[in-house]
């Protein structure tokens, strides 16, 4: 609790431009679901628990992290193994979704 207070004290003592920068960063990093809506339609890489990567355009995501990608490459050990026009990935297999 006291450390948190210290850190807020520090941020308030920053010059105003820098303080603005912090809130701008917070807007992008501190809310996972706003990140997801931000990258919908964009090119993403999805890694699943088996280590396989899927590189494609994010169409939709839901609360279970079920994902639909368009024009997707399946990458196994760094090599493109297959291509999908559209693919649904079941959310429980997802490790991460990253914007490229």
């Amino acid at each position, binding site marked *: 609790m006291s450390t948190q207070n210290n850190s807020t004290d520090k941020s308030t003592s920053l010059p105003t431009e820098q303080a603005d920068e912090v809130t701008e960063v917070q807007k992008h990093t501190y809310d996972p679901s706003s990140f997801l809506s931000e990258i919908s339609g964009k090119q993403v890489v999805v890694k699943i628990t088996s280590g396989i990567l899927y590189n494609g355009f994010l169409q939709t995501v*839901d609360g279970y992290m*079920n994902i639909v990608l368009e024009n997707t490459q*399946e990458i196994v050990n760094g090599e*493109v*193994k*297959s291509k999908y*026009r*559209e693919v*649904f990935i079941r959310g429980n297999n997802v490790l991460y979704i990253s914007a490229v």
Partner: protein
Amino acid sequence: MSASIESQGSFMTEPLDLIRLSLNETVYVKLRDGRELTGRLHAYDSHCSMVLGDVEETVSSIDENDVSKVTTKTNKSDMLFVRGDSVILVSPCVPEKL
């Protein structure tokens, strides 16, 4: 009832809509343990459990003696229920293998 079913239309707003739009179409399903299925989708639920017709299953496994060798075996089934927890991905068309 059927009118309101029509009104769901072909628009996709959530991921499971892709599976709904594949009803009565051939789908490709990738499962855990190196299993793949292609068959006609007759039913699914929110867990991705499915009933597929005219299914061909391909099982890929690493050769016991030679780790670099992969053996595949295919099986057929007329009507198959697949439990959703084994599903990794579902695609409305068979992927282009490279």
